[in-house]
């Protein structure tokens, strides 16, 4: 039976995005969702941001190039701020995690890396989350961290 919308939403927000005390596969899942939401947020902002390349929301025909240039330069100056740079470092991490873990999910979707069904034994690790999949998960975390470090270097020259 379907429950009410509010109780469902409450349970989902408290449970699904909080993988503590669950296994690694659950962490991978929660991170995939969180990173997806983060990159979606960035995508929305990025569409608005790049819209300023031609002069912003109200430009619907070819503007004077000087007008477009002024608006974009002002936008770029506004965005040239440590807060936004830190945001981009986080987005870089999220994007790369989502990409590589997404490749793992794509492979499993089409039947690869699934492992064989076996008897569940203590400590009941998920059989579906095979060694290669674990390796891909950790690879995604590793590359995401490397990207964040690279981004820190680009923006702050650490």
């Amino acid at each position, binding site marked *: 039976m*379907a*429950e009410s*919308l509010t109780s*469902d*939403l409450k349970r*989902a927000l408290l449970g*699904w995005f909080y993988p503590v005390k669950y296994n690694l596969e659950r962490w991978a899942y929660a991170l995939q*969702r969180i990173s*997806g*939401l983060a*990159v*979606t947020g960035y*995508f*929305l902002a990025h*569409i608005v941001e*790049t*819209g300023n*390349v*031609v002069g912003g*929301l109200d*430009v*619907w*025909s*070819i*503007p004077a*190039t000087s007008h*477009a*240039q002024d608006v*974009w*330069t002002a936008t*770029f100056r506004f965005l040239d701020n440590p807060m936004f740079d830190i945001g981009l470092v986080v987005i870089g991490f999220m994007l790369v995690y989502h*990409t590589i873990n*997404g*490749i793992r999910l*794509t492979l499993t*979707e*089409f039947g690869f890396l699934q492992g064989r069904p076996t008897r569940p034994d203590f400590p009941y690790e998920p059989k579906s989350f095979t060694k290669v999949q674990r390796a891909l998960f950790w690879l995604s975390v590793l590359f995401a961290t490397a990207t964040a470090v690279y981004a820190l270097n*680009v923006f702050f020259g650490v």
Partner: protein
Amino acid sequence: MKESKKMLLHYITGLGIVIAGGVHLFTVFLAGPYVQNLAFSGGAFSVIAVYRNLVLALTLELLLVFVDYHALNGLRIILIEFHQSTRWERGVSWILVVTGILLLIYGTRTVLIANALT
């Protein structure tokens, strides 16, 4: 559209994003200095130069289409897993389709006009 077809498109657009997004990130971060690449003009991969290059502009448009579908379908997946009812699913889908089309129109406008800027 069948749910399996929507998910197949999700994986196809995901793969498309890896390629088109790779080109996009390359032109911004790896093809010359980052600050010059984000300047309006002046470098081989400055903002306007990228939009005026037909292949790169087309790549950006494709990236827009792929990310638009992938992101909003992703939101749909999350939202319909939160709660199950026909009304909820229809409402969520409609709102996301309209949002997706509006984003696509605005983004395509940017690509087309930026491509035509002299």
